[in-house]
């Protein structure tokens, strides 16, 4: 009997975007509301996991040709790098700063260096979680 996952596929296609949006929201809102790089990263990773569950690894890979190991490494590198960058400006390691900048369309918004740091955290979390899940599932 051929299995038919059409409902799962359809729901996944919708749900993944909601989850991704929510993950990005958690990530961005972290400084003012509950959330942040870690949780955001985990939620984003869970979106990928849902994709992996609904479809198979090859399909997901075709759709998103990302090497999650590199993503994780890049995340860790960004986190450490922001710390080093602070030293380049003559302040202690991992000092954070923020500026207000006027951006077209959005107008004046505060830009904090902590976002970069948190991005590193998020990338590392996504990369690591998905790497682990993929590695284990490929091991069958």
């Amino acid at each position, binding site marked *: 009997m051929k299995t038919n996952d059409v409902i799962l596929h359809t729901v996944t296609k919708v749900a993944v975007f909601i989850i991704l949006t929510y993950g990005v929201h958690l990530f961005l809102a972290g400084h003012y*509301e509950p959330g942040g790089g870690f949780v955001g990263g985990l939620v984003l990773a*869970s979106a990928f996991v849902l994709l992996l569950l609904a479809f198979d690894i090859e399909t997901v890979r075709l759709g998103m040709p990302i090497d999650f190991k590199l993503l994780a490494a890049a995340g860790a590198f960004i986190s*450490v790098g922001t710390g080093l960058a602070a030293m380049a400006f003559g302040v202690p390691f991992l000092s954070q700063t923020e500026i207000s900048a006027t951006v077209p369309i959005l107008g004046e918004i505060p830009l904090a260096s902590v976002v970069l740091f948190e991005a*590193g955290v998020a990338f590392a979390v996504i990369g690591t979680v998905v*790497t682990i899940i993929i590695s284990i599932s490929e*091991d069958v």
Partner: protein
Amino acid sequence: MYTLNIAIVIPFIVALFIPLLYKKFGRVHTGWFVLAVPVALFIYLAQFIPSIARGEVYFSEVPWIPSLGINFAAYLDGLSLILALLITGVGSLVVLYSIYYLSKERESLGHFYVYLLMFMGAMLGVVLSDNLMVLYLFWELTSISSFLLIAYWYHRRQSRYGAQKSMLITVTGGIGMLAGFIMLSTMTGTNSIREIIATIGQYTDHTLFIPAMLLVLLGAFTKSAQFPFHIWLPDAMEAPTPVSAYLHSATMVKAGIYLVARFTPVFGGDAVWFWVVSIVGLVTLFWGSFTAIRQTDLKALLAYSTISQLGLIMSLLGLGSAALYFDEATEATAYYSLAIFTALFHLINHSTFKGALFMVVGIVDHETGTRDIRKLGGLMTIMPITFTLAVIGSFAMAGLPPFNGFLSKEMFFTSTLRASELSFFSMETWGLMFPVVAWVASVLTFVYCMILVFKTFFGNYQPEKLEKKAHEAPLGMLIPPVILASLVVAFFFFPNIIGEYLIQPGYGAILPTFMEANLPDYDIAPWHGINTELLMTLGVVGFGIVLYRLWPSWSGIYALFPAKFSLDSLYNHTLMSVERRSTSLTNRYMTGNMYHYMVYIFIVIIVVVTGAIAYTGAFRFDPSNDAPISIYEAFIAVVMALTAIAIPFAKSRLTAILLNGVLGYLLALFFVFFRAPDLALTQLVVETVSASLFLLCFYFLPEWEKEKRKRKIKGINAIIALSVGTLVTMLALSVQSNRLFDSISAFYENAYELAGAQNIVNAILGDFRAFDTMLEVVVLLIAGIGVYVLIKLKANKGGRDVENK
């Protein structure tokens, strides 16, 4: 002005160049280059004889670790001079002898002379050092270089065994001695031996005085092969004969004697010192001579005779220390100090005749191929010079005129007789023991000396038993023992020359107060008239001849001491059982079972933490500051507790995993109640991910482990678990009730001003304490890479490693 220090260092420096000389000038025997060192040093040291005899001393100090009071301090007085002259003098002869003894073609001479020079330098350092720690340094260097020399023919099993044995015993004593030195230095506040001697009077009642004394003696006894530590010396005879002659007769074994002599002004006069040194010396004297008789190997015989003679010197030093019992140096008290004088005299005598005897045995071994007295015999006519030397050496050792051994043995008898007149240290009851033991041991000494001469050189020549055709040794090999033997005779006829120039200053170094009191000097004279000592010597000769003649009839006495009960087998047995027991002990607790290790860890935690709480009385329960408990919290707590209790009783792994998940989600709920939204979010997601990972593992578990079996309930596990749980609860309650200061969280409430963040938790994670977060990210990355690597790079089913692909 540091010539003394330089003299100590010179052998080490030359040793550095030996490999170069050995490689570059391979055609010349390396020993010729080495020979210059001890000869030069001997000449240099001999220049000090007149001034030292006038009572001068030389001291020079090079700072090494001044903050610890460790300085390279060289000190030359009469005692050091005697030993230093022996080291360099016998050293020169031994090097000359070794040139002819060791083959240039077959032996690795580079190694030999490096070790020998190391030893010479270390030995000079021992006798010339004034600083305790530097003395110890050189002391251990002699142990190490002796170890290397004994195992010179390292391909022989017996050599390695002997080297290991001597190393273990002498280093054990050395470490003990270090402890004693540290005690001395703590007591007196200085590392300088001279300062210690000057101030020791204030410290004789110190609690560390006796332990320090005994530990220093332990070092001295192990080094100079005193009973019961003598067992290493016979096994050290596996070394090349020049080494035996040098280290194990003239120098290294005298290091212990030197140490006892050097520390006599520190500890002498104390009853413990008197008894320990004298008794150990006498026991060694007797036991060494008794055991020497049964040896069939010439070198073993000489080894035991060395032990015996060292015991003699040691007992003399012990007896002589009685003179220090009296506070004042008068003629009456100096009466007992003859023993010290005799000890030094015999020390010199022993080095001369024992060195010669070892060289003679080396010649016999070299020219016949064996040292077994059962195979030897009738060599008198074949090797006449060697025979003469052997007679001189043996008769000197036996204490016969006209050799120097006769003089020191007579004086030894005098000293023991005088000691037996002592009226303190409960000598009234035990005093007579000394001359009796001394006399018996002398008889036995006479017997083995006869065996040495007569079994080797008399009787029938048995060429069929020998590996080589026996012939006289080359001239170069004969010169060193000839020199030593001439000294043996010369010392008999002109004893007062060395008496005045060497022994008196040495005596003065050991008993300075007696020298200052300007008491009449000791004269050594071969003829005192007919007195007790002479009669004792006549008795020694008479009984010795009888015993030697009747040897076969009383040799059965040695059956009373079978090898099974010897100290050697005790040593072997101890070594083996220590190894066996430690192995079995290690195997008993290092089971390889993770369960056991967890049990140890938990038990240690329980014991240590409970002990600490009980000891400090830290447990306190104070609920007054606690927040009220709402009904929801109580409900969740109860459910969590029930879930946790249910996990160990779950019948299947699946149930346990799910219950674990329940715990995680309830915890998230708790975070919600305690207003920690970030934590709740993270906890929810993490719990989900880990539960699914658990399930993944569950799914891939091997077939056979899937069986649903009831968990083995062990009482001990329950007890440990309950104890740890109770402990942690108590700890948490105590911590909660013991608030010592206010929380620092007020600072973080300014997060918006400080970091522009309204989410304090995130501000802490990303800004205030971003370092932790950064490292956690790295940890996560490492874990991910670890999982990836473990899965991708594991060995294939054939067992072939990925590296071998």
